[in-house]
């Protein structure tokens, strides 16, 4: 996919642009504040379909806030105000017509700490499916096998599907959570530091999974681990103080970033 990289003539950031056919999520002049304190400032960027896009930046730069906003996780927090637009496949996610439950089915989310429900492995994956619609058991079993296989967990758990999910290791729990999200067939998967609590081998498994999943859906990854962003993402966006600093193909951001600020951050320099 070719992103046209446009470096504007003044101080504007170098940002990759995608055509409306390539773009899955589109964020347009989006700002968000917690009790008047600005967390995201006039962000404009689009996330390409069937690609992995990484958001990097120091703590408090707004990357997780942005991820949560895409899933409308701030809805119940009354102190949060926002302006601007987020569109998913051309649909405004804040449109009153938009069903939040349906939005969250289409946009799955995985958090830093694995959060399996206190029930069996099988029931964890079946949970979303049961909420959605009644399915014959055979059909449901097929979907569960498919989801666990897609999450690269099937071979490890197929003989103990009815054991508690809490018996799994941290890495397996995280893949179970991903399987649970995949079962409802989302278009987008948001991953907020999905491997930061895992050991290196489990981390590599999650990263391999991310790579394999992009043929099925669009992935957005928030990570503190720069090498992880470099390893798995196709595009990287660097955020700082709630603003988008630089956004481009990962290959370029990690070999020859356009801005000194980005260079300093990814190479661990004092700014």
């Amino acid at each position, binding site marked *: 996919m070719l992103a046209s990289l446009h470096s504007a003539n003044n101080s504007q950031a170098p940002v990759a642009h995608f055509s409306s056919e390539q773009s899955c999520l589109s964020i347009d002049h989006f700002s968000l504040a917690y009790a008047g304190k600005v967390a995201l400032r006039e962000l404009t960027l689009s996330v390409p379909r069937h690609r992995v896009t990484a958001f990097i930046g120091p703590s408090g730069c707004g990357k997780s806030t942005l991820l949560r906003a895409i899933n409308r996780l701030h809805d119940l927090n009354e102190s949060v105000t926002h302006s601007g637009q987020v569109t998913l496949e051309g649909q405004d996610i804040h449109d009153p017509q938009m069903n939040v439950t349906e939005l969250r089915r289409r946009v799955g989310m995985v958090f830093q700490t694995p959060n399996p429900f206190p029930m069996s492995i099988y029931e964890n994956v079946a949970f979303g499916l049961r909420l959605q619609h009644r399915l014959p058991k055979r059909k449901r079993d097929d979907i569960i096998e498919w989801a666990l296989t897609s999450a690269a967990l099937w071979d490890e758990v197929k003989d103990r599907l009815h054991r508690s999910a809490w018996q799994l290791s941290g890495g397996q729990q995280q893949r179970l959570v991903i399987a649970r999200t995949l079962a409802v067939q989302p278009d987008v998967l948001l991953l907020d530091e999905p491997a930061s609590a895992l050991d290196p081998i489990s981390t590599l498994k999650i990263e391999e999974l991310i790579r394999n999943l992009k043929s099925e859906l669009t992935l957005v990854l928030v990570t503190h681990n720069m*090498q992880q962003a*470099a390893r798995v993402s196709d595009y990287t966006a660097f955020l700082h103080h709630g603003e988008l600093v630089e956004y481009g193909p990962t290959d370029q951001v*990690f*070999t020859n970033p356009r*801005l*000194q600020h980005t*260079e300093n951050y990814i*190479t*661990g*320099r004092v700014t």
Partner: protein
Amino acid sequence: MDITSDTHSKHISRQFNQELEELKTHLMAMGGLVEKQVQDAVFALLEGDTRLAEQVRDNDRQVNDLQLQIDDECTRVLARRQPAASDLRLVLAVIRATSDLERIGDEASKIARNAMLLGENGSAVRGLVEVRHISEHVRKMLRDALTAFARFDTDLAMQVVREDELVDDEYSSAMRSLMTFMMEDSRSITSVLSVMWVLRALERVGDHADNLAEYVVYLVKGLDIRHSDTDALEPKVLKKP
């Protein structure tokens, strides 16, 4: 985004600063040694100093050792630091540069071998004017390429790239004169052939200096200019076109 020669000293990890600084220092030391090898080899040839020529041949081992040492340091930095952006480009540029410097060392060694052959021969040798001329030219290129590396100076690097084209022309014209010498006097063929090998070695030194200059542009600008047309590149690389 261009970087400057102090870009690599601003990491939060001072140890990392030091490692990158050492890479540059060691590369410059290797460059200095190689420069001296070329200078001595040519001097030995022009002055018929076979002892100096022998010394050049012996010193080639030091050049090789430095290449191994610096490559080893680069491997360690890659494995332990996983450098990105300009840090990565520095390590890659240094690895490439050591390989070219080592090859220049080999060319100096070849020149020294021919200096020993010609020294043993004893008779008047044709073509030394050409050797003197081209050697001065390529030695300046090498010096400039190393200076450009030390100062991250892309303008100077581009000048070296330009000079290489001139050296190639001078080399062709020198070869034509030497052919004429051989045709005029068949007894001179052995010694003229030696001189031709020397010229060939010098021309290769120029090519390697050209490569070094290209790595400087890669390091500073992130632009890989190998196998590119110089005219088209200059506007992108030069500070003052």
